[in-house]
């Protein structure tokens, strides 16, 4: 059985594709589904791992920009293959105010479904998806794994979604 049979051949799911409705642990005893957010845009930020250095850390940056995402009515979730306890410790240490989801078992299942798993490394890509309020992917972007993509692309995509 191929471990990547679910991965779309063409890389990350493209705009216009219905976003696969995941259900993942945000804490050891809480599950979060994409459909929980229906009615509001959602930012999915796949990232390789918890505990990267602070000042250049993508999640620390998004945490700081969270009020701006909320102003645009969007909800943010981070996703990596780290387990829920690891996420809990990381979120506490970094004072994060948004959920981190554990794509942990089966490992990388949802990253594969979104086309952003790196089987050779056992982690997901640094990939961003903006999903509109009806659950359809509006924008996606995969950053080079070592480059924090920042938030300008996300904000531009959210502004495109906002009523003119």
């Amino acid at each position, binding site marked *: 059985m191929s471990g990547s049979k679910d991965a779309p051949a063409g890389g990350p799911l*493209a705009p216009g594709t219905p976003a696969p409705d995941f259900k993942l642990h945000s804490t050891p005893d809480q599950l979060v589904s994409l459909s929980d957010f229906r009615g509001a845009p959602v930012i999915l930020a796949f990232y390789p791992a918890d505990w990267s250095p602070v*000042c250049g850390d993508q999640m*620390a*940056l998004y945490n*700081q920009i969270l009020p701006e995402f909320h102003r645009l009515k969007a909800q943010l979730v981070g996703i990596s293959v780290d387990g829920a306890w690891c996420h809990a410790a990381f979120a506490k240490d970094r004072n994060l105010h948004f959920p981190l989801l554990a794509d942990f078992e089966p490992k990388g299942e949802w990253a594969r479904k979104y086309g952003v798993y790196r089987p050779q490394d056992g982690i997901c890509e640094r990939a961003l998806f903006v999903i509109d309020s009806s659950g359809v992917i509006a*924008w996606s972007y995969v950053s080079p794994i070592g480059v*924090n993509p920042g938030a300008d692309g996300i904000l531009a995509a959210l502004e495109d979604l906002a009523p003119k």
Partner: protein
Amino acid sequence: MRTHFAPKLVLPVSERDHIRGPANAPVTLVEYGDYECPYCGMANSIVDEIRRELGNDLRFVFRNFPLTEVHPHAEHAAEIAEAAGTHHKFWEMHDLLYAHQDALGDQHLAEYVTLLGIPTTEVKRALAQHAYMDRVHEDFMSGVRSGVNGTPTFFINGSRHDGSYERDVLLAAIADAAR
């Protein structure tokens, strides 16, 4: 899907900025930084070295990008530097803050204000009323929209520098931009 985009500085350098070096320098280096960030502290020494080396061939601009969720003193430090700026002492304060990154509590900031001969009551009031908060936030958002992805982030002649900020790497990138 976009596979690559090269972030550009969206807010051009202007009179609103704190600038070191001549306006007609061939290269402008803009840094988005946080006074409590240890990496910015290291980068600041490197920038000082590069400025000395390049003299009038470099214009350096500093903008605030405080990551307050991880650096509890960063916002007040940024506001104090802006307050000093209205007394034409931005760079003196900037240098003091980076020289004392382990002492950025409000009491320490007050000492630096006194040290630079800036009226302390006025600065205290400005901090309490968040008089410089909007300015710091404007810097911050201009960074976000330009693709700042952590601190420090540098822009060389308006393009984000994605290499390291080691002296030789930064110098080489500046030399490239000057060509």
